[in-house]
């Protein structure tokens, strides 16, 4: 069930209505049942995977907590008799025990993720390496829906339990719901147990404001996804697939279109997700904070796909930065390479690992890996250039001036969009070639000679896109000024608020790019 399918919308209505009709005690169990139904409909086999993850995490988290409790009891009982050294040794022993269990859990679950997602990638590469594409047969592997998301979410939980930051959930069904909660199963956000649990398992009374705010956000998400992103998809597909025809300035157009498409697609999807949860009184973590208003790439990554970024920071970057070997490396490099370089080595290494894994996490392909590393390179370069920028800012006093900020924002958007072309063309050398052609082949004539009418969009489509994007931009600007459009509207007479929602719905129905009438299939023929 895709979010944009009619089946999903029916499912959603059923879930929300029954959520408020049944006794409040039954609310979270109901969500669990519906989440499993959602997963079952996608593919019954997926259930096996999510069950293994849930049960292994459940069991191991309990074991770890029991070890903790037992050790605490032991300590309180024997505190008086133990020497300092004995205490320390005992603690280390306990930790080692827990560590073993954690290892089992991580190996198992990240193992499942790796095997399902990356087996064919590895086989492809081995074949390539051996120069024989048929040496190893590709396997027909099922990749459970949302496995990257729920695995990360669950691993975050087990690490928190290990660290003692999180109490283990003793009700396996509650943990199962945390892992499988259906709105976020498909595309995140990656929630933290500590944030989500209180609201997920709480009893929620029907509240007109909560429900209508949730619905408002869902409608807004659909508007962005169906009216804008899906409409642009046609053009982006054409531009990206016919690489012989669409070079030079077309690549630039593709780059911009893809930037808008991706933004509307992803933030739209997350709005739908968060909105659905909100309709049931459940608060999910925000995943975006006006990313296209970032003034540099680091800021961008603090505002785009936030829950993924913080996950990598908390569970990979920091631990690596302060782990034993890294401290050794750090010490060594300070001693041997001097303070300037030595200081940077650990940061660089940790960042490298983070961006490498970020790339791999996004997909089993080289283009994603290169994409991740490109981000790493750009961030490191801009970090190195920081003193230079500071000098520049000091000298010209442009910092904070609207014009200069505008320049910074546009620069960041362009840079991010350019890096994203790896994701677009899905082929590393091709991406370099195409992006290169932007600079070597100049054909800006396409803006005026009607060429842009040939890429699958009509004048009417461009009009819808232009108006749609202006609306999105206006709403974003309101947000920058710290207005919530929802709140502003809600304060007005109820009729106004509801009419706006109705209009969003009607506009999406009429101007959405969906269904048979909207022809997205024409490229299938064009390809051959």
């Amino acid at each position: 069930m895709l979010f944009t399918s009619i089946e999903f919308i029916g499912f959603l209505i059923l879930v929300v209505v029954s959520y408020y009709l049944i006794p409040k005690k039954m609310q979270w169990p109901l969500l669990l049942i519906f989440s499993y139904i959602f997963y079952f409909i996608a593919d019954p086999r997926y259930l096996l995977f999510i069950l293994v993850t849930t049960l292994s995490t459940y069991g191991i988290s309990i074991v770890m907590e029991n070890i903790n409790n037992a050790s605490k009891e032991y300590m309180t009982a024997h505190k008086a008799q133990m020497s300092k050294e004995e205490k320390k040794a005992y603690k280390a022993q306990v930790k080692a025990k827990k560590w073993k269990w954690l290892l089992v859990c991580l190996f198992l679950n990240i193992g499942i993720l790796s095997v399902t997602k990356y087996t064919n990638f590895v086989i492809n590469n081995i074949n390539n390496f051996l120069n024989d594409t048929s040496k190893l047969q590709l396997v027909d592997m099922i990749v459970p829906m949302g496995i990257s998301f729920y695995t990360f979410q669950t691993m975050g939980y087990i690490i928190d339990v290990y660290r003692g930051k999180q109490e283990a959930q003793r009700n396996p069904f509650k943990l199962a719901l945390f892992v499988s909660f259906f709105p976020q199963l498909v595309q995140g956000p990656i929630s933290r147990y500590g944030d989500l649990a209180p609201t997920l398992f709480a009893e929620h009374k029907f509240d007109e404001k909560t429900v209508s705010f949730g619905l408002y956000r869902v409608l807004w998400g659909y508007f962005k996804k169906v009216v804008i992103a899906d409409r642009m998809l046609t053009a982006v597909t054409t531009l990206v697939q016919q690489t012989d025809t669409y070079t030079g300035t077309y690549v630039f157009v593709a780059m911009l279109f893809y930037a808008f498409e991706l933004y509307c697609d992803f933030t739209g999807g997350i709005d739908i997700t968060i909105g659905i949860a909100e309709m049931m009184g459940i608060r999910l973590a925000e995943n975006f904070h006006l990313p296209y208003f970032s003034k540099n790439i680091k800021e961008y990554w603090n505002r785009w796909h936030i829950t993924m970024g913080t996950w990598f920071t908390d569970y990979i970057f920091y631990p690596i930065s302060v782990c034993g070997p890294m401290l050794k490396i750090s010490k060594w490099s300070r001693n041997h390479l001097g303070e300037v370089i030595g200081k940077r080595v650990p940061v660089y290494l940790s960042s490298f690992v983070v961006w490498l894994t970020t790339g791999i996490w996004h997909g089993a392909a080289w283009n994603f890996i290169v994409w991740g590393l490109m981000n790493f390179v750009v961030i490191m370069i801009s970090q190195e250039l920081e003193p230079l920028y500071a000098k520049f800012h000091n000298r010209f006093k442009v910092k904070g001036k609207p014009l200069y900020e505008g320049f910074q924002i546009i620069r960041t958007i362009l840079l991010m969009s350019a890096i994203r072309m790896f994701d677009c063309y899905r082929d590393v050398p091709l991406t370099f070639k195409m992006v290169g052609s932007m600079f070597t082949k100049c054909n800006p004539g396409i803006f005026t000679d009607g060429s842009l009418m040939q890429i699958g969009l009509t004048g009417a489509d461009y009009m819808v896109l232009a108006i749609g994007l202006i609306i999105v931009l206006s709403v974003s600007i309101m947000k920058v000024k710290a207005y919530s459009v929802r709140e502003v509207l809600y304060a007005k007479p109820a009729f106004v608020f509801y009419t706006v929602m109705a209009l969003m719905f009607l506009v999406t129905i009429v101007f959405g790019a969906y269904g048979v009438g909207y022809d997205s299939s024409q490229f299938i023929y064009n390809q051959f």
Partner: protein
Amino acid sequence: MKSKRFVAAFLVIILTLGSLYLLQRLLVPKYQTGIVEGSMVEEYYKDKSAHEVLFIGDCEVYENFSTITLWEKYGITSFIRGSAQQLTWQSYYLLEDALKYETPKVVVFNVLALKYNTPQNEAYNRMSIDGMNWSVSKINNIKASMTEEENFIDYVFPLLRYHSRWSELTSDDFEHFFSKDLVTHNGYYMRVDSKPQSEFPDPRPLADYTLGENAMGYMQKMVDLCKEKGIELILIKAPTEYPHWYDEWDAQVVEFAKNNDVEYINYIPLQEEIGLDMSVDTYDAGLHLNTSGAEKMADYFGAYLKENYDLIDYRENEEYATIWQEKVDFYNAMKEQQYSELEQYGELVSFGANAIRN
């Protein structure tokens, strides 16, 4: 305060539903000029008088038999439930549907559609199905006809299918927002212009000439349904020669007719006997008959019906005579308009391809 908000919400929901209904009316194609084939199926329900003969099939029935000639010459009351590329199961379900309203004496099915065994084309599906009143037959028809790209829900709410027509609305969509004009004559699509038949390309050999099981199965269902209702079924192959009707196909239908004890007439070899002159009796170089051809065909077929089936001459029935006089007038008026356009412009301007508005 709270209750006020609920009232507002309720009102907005009602308004939204109303808007959806109006939007749907506006955006669904009206099939009033140019492409009128999408109006054919629903026009059946507008005809309140009963029919003794019911034609079902594709363009080879709705363009080749003049219902008005059948009336004028023989007093036969007939209706054509046909639409563009109407597939065998669509004809079956339209028959099933029609039998809810009346029981004709004779049902005529044109066999060309047997060549298609699977769903073909979304556009034709919509033209054939959208006009049907809701019933189990319609639901089954949709299920049998949907191509892979289609969704059932799009038939329930045509707005979901036609929502993007907002950029191609024509004056027709506003003029016929609430009511549509008749475009056929009891299902007959009139074209008086003429374009002589030319040479057709050689038929391509087929690796397998077996008519599909699915299509043949639905023809069997027609036979069974007609037998159950005491209706005589006549299978025909219209006299037009293109698309090619292979001898191997013909043999299978002959065999089928024999086994089921129903009549089957292939009119292709009878062109001369009917009096068809394909240099004048076709409007599109031999694919379909024009009105002079359709009138000859109706004349010939009417005589056959009269002779072999117990049909009443309704011209003596005053009630029917009044109803049909109106039809005859409409028929003649349209004919006159078409001829005058031909004279004035050398081609039809408010009918056919030239009338398609975009």
